[in-house]
């Protein structure tokens, strides 16, 4: 083995190899940072270029894209509260608060260094433990995967903080969104309303992007003059972060292990690992109260885990021929096209390719680190951009990134719809992260449960015995219960700790508005009940298996809504809510203007061309937000110039470089 590794190191030091790793890293970081396009799309976009390369070289380039895209996703998450990849959805929870406090650079360094640790850990595990772990991955049946998914969902308790009822509702709504479409288990068409576009279901990345990016961008409308945050360029930021990370060695190790293991599990990838690592970090932290307000641990854990996934996902790919994640599936395709069959015989027949690739994975980690260190100073300048330019550009970027994911405009509509809903929900204190949690884990939970039940019926004659017959499943079940239990403890502690603070300091005086939080909560609960009632009626059409989860969601949601109504209608507990006006700061005319412009942009893109519509959208939105600017030049000319410039930039990146086939128009 050592001589093979040595030979692989020599190959990896060849200039041509270093070159492809460098190219892959640059492309991966940028694609990762672009909202919408995620690691999978990056790897897929680079796939054709590898066909003419030597197999190991092509594969290493794809790995470089995969690895650095998982880091790149954190850049936009930290700076503009927009998850660049689905694996970065947790990073923004603490990354954005850090940026708001002026610690953007520090947060970026934390993400980069933690990602490097995780990536290196996953890579080492891949290099030295692949055969052992590959066999281990064959012990995973649907029961085990179900409990892993449940322990993920159990994190809702620690993720929702003091809004536990709304957090639970959020996770249910997230899972409910994953129910839409054709059920893979029963084949039922659930909530498709006879639209063939809804048959594949609600796509994850556009939904996450809508929740976080569109939602937070609409929040920026409240003060169009400001930039996102002050940026303080501190000397010694890197050193400060290094010291911080040295203080959390155990956390980094645990996150690395979690990431690698989740990577090995078939069907689970970066986004799940990030949630699990974030939840665990909060659970075991000495300062759980800092989470969500700018905790370095909260940035380090998910970023460490989502990079560790890369090595983990390669274990079953190389040893068994089972790609464990979407990106790994594309790499499997790359191997196949070269006529190399990933599977049990890969190491004996093409050991050279396997080892060159595994060592190459380590060099992609180094490349990611170097490229990150070189660019962080510059990328953190992004927070200086004034909101009036930020709103239009992030929306346009999200739209084209989402489109590029599957070359589908339907995904852009999903982005818009979920973005608006997410914005309203965030105003009503529903923790968006719980919706994301449900979205990420919904399908895995339902499918593994139903599979386990079918297996159980065949093997044991009962629907549940299989879950208890397997030792590993029982261990994981206990782990899920432990996660849930300690999360509940933490949440109750948090709630009681927050209570005096809340009553002591009066909430920031806000303008009165026609809708207070109490009335809004009751309306929300009525909405939940109506939605659930509709769901229950629809579910009568489904098969027994397909109807189970929708029914469960509807019933629990009705219960939660009842509690919500009870708490708010009660004069004692509802009085405080009546003094809060969630929508009082919203500049409605501007809000409607931007939202309508965005919807029109999506509709017009199909007919008048993507870049033509984007120009009009960019100019119009920036103009709307420049109303307070002095002088016609700043009010009229700047928006048009900005729109032209940014549109040209989009055209260069997405059409000329990435060759994404957007709908053509008369000009472009």
């Amino acid at each position: 083995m050592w001589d093979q590794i040595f030979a692989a190191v020599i190959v990896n030091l060849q200039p041509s190899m270093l070159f492809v790793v460098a190219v892959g890293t640059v492309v991966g970081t940028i694609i990762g940072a672009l909202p919408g396009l995620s690691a999978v799309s990056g790897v897929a976009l680079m796939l054709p270029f590898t066909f003419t390369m030597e197999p190991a070289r092509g594969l290493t380039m794809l790995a470089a894209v995969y690895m650095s895209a998982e880091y790149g996703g954190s850049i936009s998450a930290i700076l503009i509260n927009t998850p660049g990849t689905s694996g970065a959805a947790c990073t923004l929870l603490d990354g954005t608060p850090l940026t708001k406090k002026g610690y953007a650079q520090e947060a970026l360094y934390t993400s980069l260094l933690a990602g490097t640790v995780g990536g290196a850990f996953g890579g080492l595990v891949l290099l030295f433990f692949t055969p052992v772990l590959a066999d281990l991955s064959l012990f995973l049946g649907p029961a085990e995967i179900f409990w892993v998914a449940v322990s993920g969902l159990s994190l809702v308790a620690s993720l929702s903080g003091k809004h536990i009822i709304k957090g639970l509702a959020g996770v249910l709504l997230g899972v409910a969104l994953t129910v839409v479409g054709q059920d893979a288990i029963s084949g039922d068409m659930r909530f498709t309303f006879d639209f063939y576009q809804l048959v594949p279901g609600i796509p994850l990345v556009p939904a996450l992007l809508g929740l976080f990016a569109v939602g937070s961008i609409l929040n920026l409308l409240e003060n169009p003059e400001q930039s996102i945050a002050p940026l303080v360029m501190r000397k010694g930021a890197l050193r400060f972060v290094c010291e911080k990370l040295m203080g959390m060695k155990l956390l980094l190790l645990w996150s690395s292990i979690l990431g690698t293991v989740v990577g090995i599990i078939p069907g689970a990838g970066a986004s799940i690992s990030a949630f699990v690592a974030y939840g665990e970090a909060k659970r075991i932290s000495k300062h759980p109260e800092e989470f969500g307000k700018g905790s370095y641990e909260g940035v380090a854990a998910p970023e460490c885990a989502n990079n560790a996934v890369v090595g983990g996902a390669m274990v079953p790919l190389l040893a068994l021929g089972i790609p464990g994640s979407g990106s790994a599936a594309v790499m499997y395709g790359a191997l196949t096209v070269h006529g190399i069959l990933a599977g049990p015989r890969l190491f004996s027949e093409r050991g050279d390719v396997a080892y060159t690739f595994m060592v190459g994975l380590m060099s992609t980690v180094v490349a990611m680190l170097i490229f990150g260190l070189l660019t962080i100073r510059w990328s953190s300048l992004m927070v200086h951009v004034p909101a009036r330019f930020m709103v239009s550009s992030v929306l346009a970027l999200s739209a084209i990134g989402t489109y590029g994911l599957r070359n589908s405009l339907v995904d852009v509509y999903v982005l818009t719809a979920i973005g608006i809903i997410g914005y309203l929900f965030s105003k009503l204190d529903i923790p968006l992260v719980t919706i994301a949690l449900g979205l990420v884990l919904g399908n895995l939970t339902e499918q593994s449960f139903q599979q386990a039940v079918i297996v159980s019926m065949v093997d044991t004659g009962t629907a549940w015995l299989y879950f208890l017959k397997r030792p590993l499943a029982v261990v994981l079940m206990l782990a899920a219960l432990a996660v849930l239990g300690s999360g509940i403890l933490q949440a109750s502690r948090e709630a009681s700790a927050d209570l005096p603070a809340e009553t002591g300091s009066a909430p920031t005086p806000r303008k009165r508005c026609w809708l207070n939080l109490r009335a809004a909560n009751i309306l929300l609960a009525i909405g939940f009940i109506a939605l659930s009632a509709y769901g229950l009626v629809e579910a009568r059409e489904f098969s027994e298996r397909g109807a189970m989860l929708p029914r469960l969601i509807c019933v629990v949601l009705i219960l939660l809504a009842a509690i919500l109504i009870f708490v708010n209608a009660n004069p004692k507990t509802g009085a405080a809510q009546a003094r809060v006006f969630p929508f009082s700061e919203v500049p409605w005319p501007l809000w409607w203007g931007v939202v309508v412009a965005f919807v029109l942009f999506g509709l017009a893109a199909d007919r008048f061309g993507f870049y033509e519509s984007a120009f009009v959208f960019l100019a119009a939105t920036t103009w709307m937000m420049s109303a307070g600017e002095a002088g016609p030049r700043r009010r009229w000319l700047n928006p048009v110039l900005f729109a032209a410039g940014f549109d040209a930039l989009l055209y260069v990146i997405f059409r000329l470089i990435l060759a994404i086939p957007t709908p053509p128009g008369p000009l472009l």
Partner: protein
Amino acid sequence: MKRICLGIVGVTLAMAASCPAVSWAGESGPAKPAGYPSRPVEFIVPFDPGGGADASQRVFNKYAEPIVGQRLVIVNKPGAGGATGWAEMVRAKSDGQTLAVVTPPFNIIPALVRPKQTGYKMDQFTNICIYAIVPDLLYAREGGQFKTLKDVVEYAKQNPEKTKAANTGALGADFMATLLIEHATGTKFTQIPYTGGALALQATLAGTTDVMVGTSLYAMAQKGKLRALAIATDQRDPQLPEVPTFKELGYDVFSERYRSIGGPPRLPGEIVTYWGQVCKQVVDTPQFQAEMDKIGQPAGYRGPADAQKAIDQMTRDMQLLVEKYNLAK
């Protein structure tokens, strides 16, 4: 004035289109319709990059590009087992600039099972050619209880619904192929759906499920882990001479998947003919055949008329299964 101009343009175009051979006479290769293709041709692949149909179409395009003399651009539009991408394809302009890889029976099943939620009808496809024919095989885990097809059938007959078969999603192509095997052998399995081939493979290797249907790629890649019990073709596969056919074992199971090229409805006849010839030339290339063998998707040619016939036959076979097992939603 405007109308006259348009008329003149139209007449010119019609004349140009009606005498394709003139400008291209003397060049080798199939006769091109005049001015076609004027720009890169878009190929919709309605699956994720890296999948089986994606791989085969990329190999095909590599050999077809020099013949056509234009770039053939792959656009992945995954969703609903291919149905989303085909729905977009049948809505494209019938100018031959948008084509798609069509993989019967994947396009046939949704049209039969859930016509209301499928964005196309079978008669909207212009079937141009078939370039690869991928047979189905039945697999079991090596070292498990099933060594031969006979073992499976005997066990399944004595223990109805106790044989667990992994498939790649309810009402998908694997699901149908498994049903066909149950039907022909007079057995009843319990099918367990997974989301995609990788997860079904994991389940079978892990022993969660007993058998699964798959292409010959697994026989090569998973040698020593998976055992091919039978192949659903008329003759044995020359690459897998040790694997018996269902027919020689006494069961009438014939199940293949096609890699074909399809276009929107009312695609001009000369474009269809042209692509049929391109397709033939590609399939006749020995390097193409070798590459397709390596990815487990053996090359095989059916021209426009034969492709239509083969797909119609497959549609009728599927229709019978749908009715027999009452699958329509």
